């Protein structure tokens, strides 16, 4: 039912203009990573030519251009850097404060962005050992994995 137009001002004339859309979003060649999360696996990419290892999905090597193959990352790593967000984009405001970390893994040349849960923000340190946790009911999003301090394992 048309509820009419919301006016915010008359001089100049300002109206409410609503917009929303649904996408058919394909993860395409990165799909196995998201399937892996549902099985408690964290998949990285290893270059089949130069051996460089990425802690993120990447079907082709950024250095040499060759195809990569999937490999299982360790489920434990360390905090490479961190922040606690007290504000955020509108859809994340209700989740504040939340802590973001970049995770470094033994055996991977690059990092992985995730959330750190189960710790007070002021206790987070670079080098803190962390362990991956997986959602029991997957949403097929990168947030199906997060990290917690490894000493609470």
């Amino acid at each position: 039912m048309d509820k009419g137009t919301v006016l915010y001002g008359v001089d100049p004339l300002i109206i409410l203009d609503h917009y929303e859309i649904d996408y058919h979003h394909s993860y395409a060649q990165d799909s196995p990573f998201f399937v892996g999360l549902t099985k408690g696996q964290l998949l990285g990419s290893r270059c089949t030519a130069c051996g460089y290892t990425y802690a993120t999905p990447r079907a082709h090597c950024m250095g040499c251009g060759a195809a990569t193959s999937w490999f299982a990352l360790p489920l434990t790593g360390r905090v490479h850097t961190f922040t606690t967000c007290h504000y955020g984009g509108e859809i994340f405001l209700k989740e504040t404060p939340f802590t973001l970390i970049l995770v470094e893994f033994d055996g991977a040349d690059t990092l992985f962005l995730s959330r750190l849960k189960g710790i007070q923000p002021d206790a987070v340190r670079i080098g803190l050992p962390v362990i991956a946790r997986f959602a029991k009911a997957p949403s097929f999003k990168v947030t199906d994995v997060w990290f917690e301090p490894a000493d609470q394992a």
Partner: protein
Amino acid sequence: MRPVYMIGGGITKFAKAHPGKDFRLMVKEAYDYTLHDAPRLSKDMIDGAVGSYFSDHFTRQLKAASMVQDYLGLCPKPSKRIEGGGATGGLCFQSAWEAVASGRMNCCLAFGFETMSRVNTWKGNEFIALASDTNFDFPVGGFYSGYYAMMVQRHMYEFGTTVEQMAMVSVKNHANALHNPYAQKAKRLTIKQVRESPMVATPLTMEDICTMSDGAAVCLLASEELAEKVCDRPVKITGVGSGSDAMRMADRPHGKVILLPHERESDYQHLKYPGVHSFRGGRMAAKLAYEMAGIRNPLEELSFVELHDAYTSSEIQTYEDLGLCRYGDGGRFIESGVPFLPGLDYGLALPNQGQLPVNPSGGLLACGHPVGATGLMQAVFAFWQLQGTIGKHLNNERLQVKNAKRGLIHSHAGTGTYITASILEAS
């Protein structure tokens, strides 16, 4: 390539909102100011235009640059739109330079704008975060202030940079803006006030972060022949450079520093580069611009810098990328006083105050950041500095860098994914 000159520029006041003016009218005002300032230039001498705005989400009008083109009465001349995140304005400036340098045009207009007030600040932050990988970065809690906070946490860990050093950038840029009537957020601050303002993403507070704005800026670039004919004090563009990096900062390598002529490999024996603490794209942009302009030691050969201080932390990181100091010395560089203006009172003890002013305009922190206009705003301030006409355009001389010979402007996107550096020289 042939020499290219900047012959005119104009900006609107950057403001939280300009509800009485749409983007066409904002650009028109900056354009009219530009033409008024270059009375011997007529519209028929302009061969075409490049328009810049960052976000289709903010504008919700595709091909908005076409609407500006017709509003300015420039149809049917060549026109295109440039988009490159936060570096949109800098890329637009360089695109106009390319049009003239290649001989395709004798005079090219670069215009940029953003209308960010159409959504609330946190929806705006969400839009901006869509300029991070929407499969892997955005869903985790996509927030640019969070990304920059993580980068500077690592900078602090690697180099000992402090939050007080970051706060000094905020004190400097907001105080400079007290003398810039175009700025949105001029004020006198102390380090304590910066630290006590609301925490956004540790360690960045509200006063460490620039604000969203509505605004527009315009630059006119021309060939040497036309510049000499229509402009009393044209400014030569002697170097352009740009660089890039991986979209996901998690994917950045940990390798060797890209060296500038005044640096040696032994300076950085133990540094893993760029990691997430430095912007390799910014270093690449600077290196290419310096090579074209023949600059070997930027600290000694530049008169001022207008750089992309979306965050106090990124100003410190950028000092290093531009080679104004060594990697790791950015915090000590601001503490030394070098990037402050001489002769202004900041309420700080600054041993080498004013050796190389950085962001004399107040930068993004104080002017605001209407994304598509920002890189062009820097060019306009640099143009006025090098013409020696700051007094005329700002109605006071306080921010005029004495005997300004050569300036650098620096525009920066994403977490360092597109970066431009351009060198302008007084003629």
